[in-house]
Every structure is written in structure tokens, then in C-alpha cells.
């Protein structure tokens, strides 16, 4: 009522004036709506720009940027941007920094101008002495931590500066450092001490120029290898060109036993998303890393999930739509399914771990069940009770399932079951009652009505929901990590009892590895593949919906 009063002219004011105020009010009030619109459109534009940036970002990093090469330490004569190499050491940065969650490491170089010692207290209450070199670099003074793990390479052999005191601090010694960046210092992992301006470190980016042969130092002496002459290095001081000379001596800290073909692969750079990402197994080396086992694992897990969740989900939906009476049990099942749809996916991972991977520990050697029936369980990585059902050789059963494809598929089934049930129910509900009644009128039994009329009519809708649920399952990472899917799987599964990995786990693994090659570029390549598969599944679902859906 109050709304009416404020918008109708009051008796005191002349009518014309009232209409005027009303119009003013009206336009002012309409402006509120316009402002809302402007804000909404701005937000949408902002969102679309972000989305476009994300896509461009992923595509550029996944397709057009070359993967960086290994790290190199070079000693030689520097003039301008060019270094003529005397000795080259190729280093695998990941070998030293695997497992740390820090920023990418960078080579840094400078003159030693001092030393420093800091005392820090550990959580346990012990005191810890940290020793640092103070370097004068392009980036100002940088602290380099020296500890017992630091490898120090010295030009003057025999006089290795093992302690801080033995470093000349007058600026006469030039050092290159590869290490891990911390808050305000760098943990030195490999330090090369040389004459001033005689050495540099960085990431191999590309090769060009004529081919020459260099000496490769290996355990069996030296051998010759043909490489291109000019290497572009990305260093902390910018891009530098390293010129190799005929007979330059090269060390491969990364792969001392590698044969020539492997060594040549070390030098090659390539875009992250090439055929090899699809055909290669996981690897520590960015340029050899791929997600073949992840793709195969995902396909099998999704196949098993479809196999299990279709009868369970559709059966439950048919029961709830066609059979269930209104009662406390139906009510409970309904509420329960809605709640299961809201349970975080990670919880399903823990459920899968306890139930499918471990069977609540029922087949541990010490469990009462095993001892009572004297079940021959094996210990170890696979473990459990392995037997052949009915003595048929290929019908092998493992109890518990262990961290197998089967356990993964079963876990995923529980995860998507509520979604499948809800989608199937909607599809079944869309079948008009007249169809049911006509079928009953012809004398069909309930199951005949369901199996021969309702199910075929609802089938396209059920399939659409099923594919959408599976496309969600294919991107789920957390439950399978919790359940114990592996990261480095360098073989293809031969049965559903094998260990496995899936695409999103590979992507997660790459994202959390240090170094832009993994963290940014290979992850982008993996995401492109994953999204391509997901979007095509969505497209199939939308196609099915439009092509076969019957409007009543």
C-alpha cells in the first residue's frame, strides 16, 4: 500500500506539477537500472577479456613458445654479447631442485665482495649458522648461501675454496651460481669460480649456425659430437650468444651415460605441444616429457566409470521416478542424493582410498579375517589376496583392489553417481504420462512399459546427462590423487589391476614442478589436450540433445 501512496499524486499539489515530479522521479529511478546495466556489462566485458587472455596465454605458451633447454655453465672469452667457449658444462636443473616449491632458478654471476654469517633459530630451538658469499651482480648485491651440498668448481685445480675464508673478497674472483631463490638470498648449488668476466650461466634457448664437432667428456674418455656452433643462452644478464669452437670440451652433468643420440636431443628445443606430448611417457626432462600414460589412464578410468555408473545411476533414477511411493525411505533417498551431490570431491577420494584401495584394511596380514580363514595374502606394493575366479586364468581378482584402474573407476563412479541420477530422473520425468498410460492400456507389465517405451524415449536425455557427468569426471584430479594414483607411470596398463595416472594429475604435477618449462609451458600443452577432449565430449552431448530430443 505504501508504494501506491508514494507514486500517486497527492491532493495538495496541483496535478501538472505532480506529473512533472513523477517524471523526474521516474527517470531518476530508471537511471538506477541503467547503472546496474553498465556495471553488469563492464563486469561481463572484464570477464570475457580475462577469458580471452587465459586462452591466448595458454595457447601461446603451449604451442608457440619453445621449451627452454638445459642450463649451461660456460667459461671462455667474453666480448660484448658473445662468449667464445673453452669449456661448457650442461646441467640438469631439475635434478638439484626437484621437490622444492620455489620460484624457478636462474643462473646469476658477479664478483665476490664479501662474506657474511647469519645465526638463525630452528623450530626445534637449535641454532643454525648460515654462511653467505656477498656477490656484486647486475641486480645489486646478492647473498649466496654456501652449505655442504654446494658444489664448487674452481679454475685453479687443487686450490678449491672449501671455506668462506678461502674466497678472495676483493672483487678479483668472478663466480657463476646456479641455485634456488629464497626470500632474500640464493642457495648456491653449483658455483663456478673463475677470473673476472670469464664465465656465464644460463638456459639454452636455441641453436644456430654451421655444424662443428666438439669433445664430449664421459666416463670412457672423450668422444666427438656434431652440434651447431652458436648457442643462445638466456642468462640473468639477458641473452648471450655462446660460440663453440672446434674441439670445445663439454661436460654433461645431466646425463653422463647418455649416448650420442640422447645428447643431441638435449640440445634440441621444441614447442611444448607437439605429437610427442601425446606419445611420450612422463619424464624429468621437459623436452622428453609427455602424457601418454595419462591419456590412456583417463580413457580407461572413464570407460570403467561409465560401465559402473550407467546401470546404478539409471536404475536408481527409474526406481525413484517409476516405482517409489511417497514415504520416509524415498524421502531419505532423495535428501541423501542431493547431499551426496554437494560432498566435496576430495572426500570421495578418501572414501575410495579406504574402501576400494584398502578394504578397511581387511586383507592386511594381521587382520582377523585373514588369520581366521588363513588367506594367503602377499605383502608389498601390490599386496593383498590374489586369486583366479573359478580357476580361469584371465579372471584374476585382487582383494583389496589396491591403487588400480579398477579402484579409480569405482571411486569416480561414486563421485558422479548423484549427477547421473539427477540427470536421468529429469530425462525420465520428461516422458509424458500419456505414453505410459497407452502402454499399460495395451496390457504391458510395469517392466515392459519401462524397458520398451519409457527407457528408449528417455535414452537420449540420459546419454546427454551421462556424457556431461563423465566430462566432469575426466577433469577431476583430487579424488584420484587422494586415492593414490601415481605420477610417474612409464608403461601402459595391461589389465584393470595395474597402476595408473590420469591427464589432470600430469598437469598438476607439471604445475607444481619448479622451472617455467614444466610449470608454465608443458602444463599449458596438457591443458590444451584436456580441454580439447572435454569440449568435444560436451559438444557430443549438446549434439545428442538437439538431434534426438523429442518435444512433447
Amino acid at each position: 500500500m505504501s508504494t501506491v501512496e508514494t507514486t500517486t499524486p497527492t491532493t495538495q499539489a496541483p496535478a501538472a506539477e505532480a506529473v512533472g515530479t513523477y517524471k523526474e522521479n521516474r527517470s531518476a529511478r530508471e537511471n538506477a537500472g541503467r547503472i546496474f546495466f553498465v556495471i553488469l556489462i563492464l563486469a561481463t566485458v572484464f570477464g570475457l577479456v580475462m577469458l580471452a587472455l587465459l586462452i591466448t596465454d595458454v595457447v601461446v605458451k603451449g604451442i608457440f613458445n619453445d621449451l627452454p633447454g638445459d642450463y649451461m655453465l660456460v667459461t671462455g672469452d667474453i666480448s660484448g654479447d658473445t662468449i667464445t667457449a673453452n669449456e661448457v658444462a650442461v646441467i640438469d636443473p631439475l635434478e638439484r631442485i626437484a621437490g622444492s616449491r620455489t620460484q624457478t632458478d636462474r643462473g646469476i654471476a658477479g664478483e665476490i665482495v664479501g662474506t657474511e654469517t647469519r645465526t638463525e633459530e630452528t623450530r626445534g630451538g637449535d641454532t643454525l649458522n648460515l654462511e653467505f658469499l656477498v656477490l656484486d651482480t647486475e641486480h645489486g648485491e646478492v647473498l649466496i648461501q654456501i652449505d655442504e651440498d654446494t658444489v664448487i668448481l674452481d679454475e685453479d685445480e687443487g686450490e678449491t675454496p672449501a671455506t668462506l675464508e678461502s674466497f678472495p673478497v676483493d672483487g678479483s674472483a668472478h663466480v657463476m651460481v646456479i641455485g634456488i631463490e629464497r626470500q632474500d638470498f640464493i642457495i648456491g648449488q653449483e658455483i663456478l669460480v673463475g677470473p673476472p668476466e670469464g664465465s656465464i650461466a644460463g638456459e639454452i634457448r636455441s641453436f644456430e649456425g654451421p655444424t662443428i664437432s666438439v669433445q664430449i667428456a664421459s666416463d670412457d674418455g672423450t668422444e666427438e659430437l656434431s652440434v651447431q656452433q652458436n648457442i643462445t643462452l638466456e642468462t640473468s644478464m639477458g641473452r648471450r650468444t655462446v660460440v663453440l669452437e672446434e674441439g670445445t670440451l663439454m661436460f654433461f652433468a645431466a646425463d653422463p651415460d647418455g649416448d650420442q643420440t640422447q645428447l643431441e636431443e638435449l640440445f634440441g628445443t621444441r614447442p611444448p605441444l607437439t605429437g610427442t606430448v601425446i606419445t611420450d611417457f612422463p619424464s624429468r626432462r621437459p623436452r622428453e616429457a609427455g602424457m601418454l600414460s595419462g591419456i590412456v589412464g583417463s580413457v580407461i578410468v572413464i570407460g570403467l566409470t561409465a560401465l559402473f555408473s550407467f546401470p546404478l545411476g539409471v536404475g536408481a533414477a527409474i526406481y525413484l521416478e517409476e516405482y517409489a511411493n511417497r514415504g520416509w525411505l524415498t524421502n531419505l533417498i532423495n535428501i541423501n542424493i542431493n547431499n551426496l551431490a554437494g560432498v566435496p570431491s576430495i572426500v570421495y577420494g578418501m572414501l575410495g582410498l579406504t574402501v576400494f584401495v584398502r578394504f578397511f584394511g581387511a586383507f592386511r596380514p594381521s587382520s582377523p579375517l585373514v588369520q581366521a580363514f588363513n588367506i594367503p595374502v602377499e605383502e608389498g606394493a601390490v599386496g593383498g589376496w590374489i586369486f583366479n575366479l573359478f580357476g580361469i586364468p584371465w579372471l584374476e581378482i585382487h582383494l583389496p583392489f589396491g591403487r588400480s584402474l579398477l579402484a579409480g573407476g569405482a571411486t569416480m563412479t561414486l563421485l558422479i553417481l548423484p549427477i547421473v541420477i539427477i540427470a536421468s530422473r529429469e530425462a525420465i520425468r520428461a516422458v509424458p504420462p500419456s505414453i505410459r498410460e497407452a502402454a499399460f492400456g495395451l496390457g504391458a507389465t510395469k517392466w515392459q512399459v519401462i524397458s520398451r517405451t519409457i527407457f528408449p524415449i528417455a535414452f537420449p536425455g540420459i546419454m546427454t546427462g551421462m556424457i556431461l557427468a563423465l566430462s566432469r569426471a575426466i577433469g577431476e584430479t583430487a579424488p584420484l590423487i587422494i586415492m593414490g594414483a601415481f605420477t610417474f607411470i612409464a608403461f601402459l596398463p595391461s589389465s584393470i589391476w595395474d597402476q595408473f595416472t590420469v591427464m589432470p594429475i600430469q598437469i598438476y604435477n607439471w604445475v607444481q614442478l619448479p622451472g617455467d618449462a614444466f610449470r608454465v609451458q608443458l602444463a599449458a600443452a596438457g591443458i590444451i589436450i584436456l580441454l580439447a577432449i572435454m569440449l568435444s565430449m560436451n559438444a557430443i552431448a549438446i549434439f545428442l540433445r538437439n538431434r534426438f530430443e523429442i518435444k512433447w
Partner: protein
Amino acid sequence: MADVPIDSGGGGPLAFLRTQAARNVYERVMHALLFIASAFSILVTLGIIASLFGEAITFFTANPEVTLREYLTGTEWAPLLQSNPQFGILPLINGTIMIAVLSSLVALPVGLATAIFLSEYAPGRLRRAVKPLLEILSGIPTVVYGYFALVFITPQLERIIAAINTAFGLTDGPGEIEINLFNALSASIVVGVLIIPLVASISEDAMRSVPRSLREGSFALGATQFETATRVVVPAALSGILASFVIAISRAIGETMAVTVAAGATPKMTLNPLESVQTMTAFIVQVSFGDAAAGSINSQSIYAVGATLFLMTFTMNLIGDFILRRFREEYE
């Protein structure tokens, strides 16, 4: 009667299958199988409760150094330390709630505005185009959102913070704003984006079920379209909108991969979104990714954390469900 074949062409070895009695048995078997399929979901819930709480209880009983009181009130979470591990869950809850709150700040207004637009303004064709888009947006794997946060949003935040530092002359000073590579803010932004479709789609459903007559009554009283939307439709659909908020926040609490990738692994009591934090979900992933042996204190501790997480999200989902049922305005 029961032995008479129904098919007139009856005969042959399988004729007994077509008798009325066989059909009745078949009907009953199918009925039973379908009932089992639908009751299976209850088994799943029981399984979740048994596995989470069973192992969580083991965690407290098998490790005398951990008490429930310390677990619920302790402010230090360091279970991976060899000597003197600490099991106070508050830092993990702190991280979880911080990310849930910050992501709601992103998702609730934007999601509600989207819902208002879709239900009150958008022509049918536009709505039919936007809805599947929202579905796809919510279907993008969360690990992709994590990548986006770490590789794209965090560097932008770093740039903005650096610009603020320069603009206010804070660089290298005591008041310099520092941002961690892993930070709660960037994780919150992507989690917010991730739950926008949820808010938008549930709220839109609620608003569209508000009957036309209410809108027309409002227009007849001279209200603008915006006033109708915000003062008539939104209050009428309030239960659905609130439920969408609660469900979205619950989803943010349970969100795993985006926060694991972007927010870091440092459990701490802080309210600074520029620092690295750890959520409950991220801790579970951290332990699981590191291959904790079954039966070790670490692998048991994830069940305690998982049970806490389950209780939190379960309660919120129940509240959402309750709001949806209890405060629903029934219209004819």
C-alpha cells in the same frame, strides 16, 4: 491360469518364461534390483561416514600425543615435523575460511547480477546461449583454474602491488606491501569465478519460478524494470538465492586443486590475503601426493581433517536445503 502360456505361438524349451508366473517373478526381480540401485546411495553415505570417522577416531586413539582439545583449539599445524609435530587445525580452518569469504565477495554479487539479468532482462535466445556457456565454465577442471591463478593472475597482482608501492613511495620502506608467489588472494579470485555459475544457475531458477503476476502487479504500480527485479522478484525468490549462496560457499570450502596450486602450503593464522596459506583440502593433497604410508600418523591425520571438512560442508548443505524448503514462497 498360472500355467497357461500367454503367447499363442508358445512352445519350445523357453515357453515357461512367458507364463504369467514367470513374468511376475521377473517383475519382482527387476523391482528389487532397481530398489537396490537407488538404496546404493545410502550405502555410499554410510561408507563416507564409516571411512572418515573410523580412521579419524583411530587417529585420536592410536596417538596419545594428539588430543581432541588440542586438535580443535591449537593454533599451530605442523604434522610433518619429525620431532614435536603440532596438530592444531585452526590455521587450516583459517586458510579455508579466508578463501571461502574472499571468493564469495567475487562470486555472490556477480552471480546474483548474472541471475537477475538472465531471468529478468535477457531475451530467450540469449539466455539459451548463455546457460550452456555457464555449464561449460563450471565444467572446466579446477586444476586449470589453479594454473590460471598461478601463471596469470598472480603475476598481474604482483604488477599491481608494485605499482601501488611505487605510487605511494613504499618501495624498500617499512610499509612496503609484499605479495607471495603463492597467495590466498589469487586463489580466491579463481575460486570465485569457479562458483559464479553455481550461484547464477540456482538463483536464476528461483527467480524464474516467481510467477508473472507479481511482476505485472509491480509494473502496474509504476515500478521500473530494475525496481521490479530488485524489490519484487529478488525478495520473492530470496530462499532460492540464499540457498545458492550457502551451497556456493560450501563448494568453495571443499574446492581443492585451485587452492592447492595457487594458495601454497603454509598453514598459518593470518588475515593477510597476500600471504601464502594452506586450506584443509590442500593439506590432504599435500600428504597424499607425498605417498604417506598407510597407518602412519600423517595418513591418519588426513582423515581427521577430511572428517572436519565433511562436517563443515555437510552442515552447510543441510542449511542450504533447509532454507530452500522452509522459506520457499509457494505460488500457484
